[in-house]
């Protein structure tokens, strides 16, 4: 080791420098007063807090620069509480720093390693214990114990089975069927093609019977975004083009990456952007991913109009909507 010849010797702890309060009773008295003032400030803080709780109504707002319009009740409650706590701490520390002994103390460390004798004793005891139980000899007991403990350890897994149902094909299907009307969300109004102007976007859900409740888990799969372009703006193959209606195209609103709602539509570029991870989809090319981490386009819903002229689904989604999962085949 290169430390054997030390060039410079450890000069040892520097001599202690006394504080003024250690030698000058006047300074000590002054420090004592300062500590007391800090503690009194804390008490005043608590009084402010109690006063605010009782006397400031909850609906008073006052304007402060930087903070803006602030609820006076909660502001003064908090400020009082902050002061009451903060000044206790300041007082205690000021006390420790000015009046309590500040001479550094040296203690020695002890080695953690047990003495050899103890270690040997320990090994002997452990061995004797194991031998007394016959752990080494009675392999039948050892193995059957291992088996029983292992099986007992599995039982929580069994008991947790009822946490939820099996997924079955839940992740793969939505409420959309051939002929399901698209209705506005919110509002639940059916939509005619002419209700949407070119460039407009509408958030829709499948129609449900009057009075029925929509579960959030259905919305999480069914949400569909309608966008109307000029038909010539599309760049789709014949099949996908037949899924649109007079320039109206429908996509699942649930991001194919991690399931956020793809809610940002840029009218100029005709891009859909997911606010979570910025996956960007090109509406004119069947929501092809043009940027970001999403690996698949948003599933397109084939739409047409029914006899009354309302927009309906032509068929269910042809692939699962939302984020990927192991059983997904494409």
């Amino acid at each position, binding site marked *: 080791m*290169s*430390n054997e010849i030390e*060039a*410079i*010797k*450890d*000069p040892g702890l520097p001599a202690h420098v006394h504080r003024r309060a250690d030698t000058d009773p006047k300074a000590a008295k002054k420090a004592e007063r300062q500590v007391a003032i800090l503690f009194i400030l804390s008490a005043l803080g608590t009084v402010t807090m109690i006063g605010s*709780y009782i006397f400031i109504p*909850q609906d008073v707002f006052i304007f402060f620069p930087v903070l803006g319009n602030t609820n006076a*009740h909660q502001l003064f*409650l*908090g*400020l009082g509480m*902050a002061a*009451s*706590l*903060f000044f*206790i*701490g300041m007082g*205690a520390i000021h*006390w*420790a720093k000015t009046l309590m002994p*500040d001479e*550094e*103390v*040296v203690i020695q*460390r002890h*080695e*953690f390693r047990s003495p050899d004798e103890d270690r040997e004793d320990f090994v002997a005891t452990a061995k004797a214990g194991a031998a007394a139980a016959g752990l080494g000899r009675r392999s039948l007991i050892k193995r059957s114990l291992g088996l029983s403990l292992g099986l007992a350890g599995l039982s929580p897994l069994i008991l947790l089975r009822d*946490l*939820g*149902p099996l997924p079955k094909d*839940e*992740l793969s299907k939505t409420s959309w069927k051939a002929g399901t009307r698209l209705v506005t969300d919110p509002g639940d109004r059916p939509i005619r093609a002419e209700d949407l102007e070119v460039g407009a976007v509408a958030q829709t*859900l499948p129609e449900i019977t009057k009075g029925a409740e929509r579960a*959030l*888990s259905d*919305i999480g799969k069914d*949400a569909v975004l309608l966008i109307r372009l000029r038909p010539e703006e599309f760049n789709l193959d014949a099949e996908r083009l037949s899924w649109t209606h007079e320039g109206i195209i429908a996509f699942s609103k649930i991001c194919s*990456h*991690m*399931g*956020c*709602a793809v*809610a940002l539509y840029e009218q100029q570029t005709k891009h859909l952007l997911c*606010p*979570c*991870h910025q996956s960007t989809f090109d509406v004119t090319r069947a929501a092809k991913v043009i*940027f970001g*981490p999403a*690996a*698949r386009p948003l599933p397109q819903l084939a739409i047409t109009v029914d006899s009354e002229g309302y927009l309906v689904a032509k068929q269910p989604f042809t692939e699962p909507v939302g*984020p*990927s*999962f*192991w*059983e*997904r*085949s*494409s």
Partner: protein
Amino acid sequence: MTARERIAGSVANYVDERTGAAAWMKKNLNKVFPDHWSFLLGEIALYSFVILLLSGTFLTFWFDPSQREVIYDGGYQPLSGLKMSAAYASTLHISFEVRGGLLMRQIHHWAALIFMAAIVVHLMRVYFTGAFRKPREFNWIIGVGLLTLGIVEGFLGYSLPDDLLSGTGIRIAEAIIQALPLVGSYLAFFAFGGAFPGEAFIPRIYTVHVLLLPGAFLALITVHLMLVWYQKHTQYPGPGRTEKNVVGYPLLPVYMAKAGGFFFIVFGVTAFLGAVASINPIWLYGPYTPGQISAGSQPDWYMGWLDGLVRMSPPLETHAFGHTISWNILIPGLIVPGILFTGMALYPFIESWMTGDKREHHLLDRPRNAPNRTALGVMSLTFMLVALINGGNDIIATTFHLTINQIMWFSRIAIFVLPPLSFMITKRLCLSLQRADRDLVLHGRETGRLVMMPHGEFVEVHEPISPEKAWLLTQHEQNPALALDENDSRGVRRPGTLKNKLRARLSRAHAVAVPKVTAEDLKEIEHH
């Protein structure tokens, strides 16, 4: 004997006769704690944990952890008549009707941010000073565990109000679970009690958030502190400080007053933040529904790096044999974080393997004197920072009028380029600082006074530095790299050549240093 002394005496006697505590107390009340501002970082984490327990308990009295649908008819007019979960409605109730409720919510959230920040900075202090070395490896691992649990606990906490922002976070967590090969969709259905979002998740994570994880925290923190107590605190090098002693202030009264006082200061500052700094105003986001979202969706900062990694991931998915593997989720969401945290937990053992150093260390390293370790730390931080910046790419884009694509491409390249670059720069900087230390010891401090010599030359007067300072700059060890010959003493090739080569290479990199001042150097200087 005064009456007070008599009462105290009989109480002490009563306790001691039943526990024998006096012997232990006598020894431990005089325990010495070294003083340094950076030793307060762990304390901040501890105190904010206490604040979290107190403010969190307050919130449970009114919070209703249920996803049962209710119609809101509370005091916040803009949401009046809206359908929402009882969890969200009760959070609004706490914010607008319970006196001090909003204050406590904000204190709780601020304390959580401070808790995580303190843990991270404390971890950095421990890492860069080498405090994790033997015998403190257990405490390092417990610390990494606490950090990991803290991230989970924080995420579950801000998910509880069931607002539009937090619900989106849960949606992303669900997608990560669902992406697991083989078991993903099953685990997701078990966790959520069916299809997302269901009505089971909030009540379940509530139990985890207020019971299971705080219990784990208490257990781990207790062991963490007991080990600090038993092993005694590390100390910075300096005159009079050795591997064998502890220099500092006794527990009673100085350390107790300072630490106790510091608790109140941390609490006071947190309360001040809760009073003046609005945080997580859930009433602005609205209730969660899977069909909606707001722009600029951001997680809390300690999750931001994870989100940033997910955002920068390339669109990779494998579709084969009727199955899908989402690399774009698995790599940034599970594999990279898994490697990072495992590597972090194992680092003490890796370093000890590289250097072959199996001795105890109680004197801290100055970061410059361990250039390799310091550079590795800065490299990891740079990685995290790039990821974190990308996690806020939308906010940065709108603030600085850039496009998201520019920031994303910057991050995608920077995450590979900047960490190695920062490693090299840091290592050079450390060595330069060592060189500066050496110069300081050899030639003293530059005084800025110029003197004209009789022959006309101008020289600057150097003043020798104090013996204390000189000691500080030269006390560190400089160990040579491991000598791992390919052949053993009998000339036979060792097994595991590749492993040995790697170890020798790493050991050499770790031992790079500017030689510190030796006795010969000083002698030579005197001759001049």
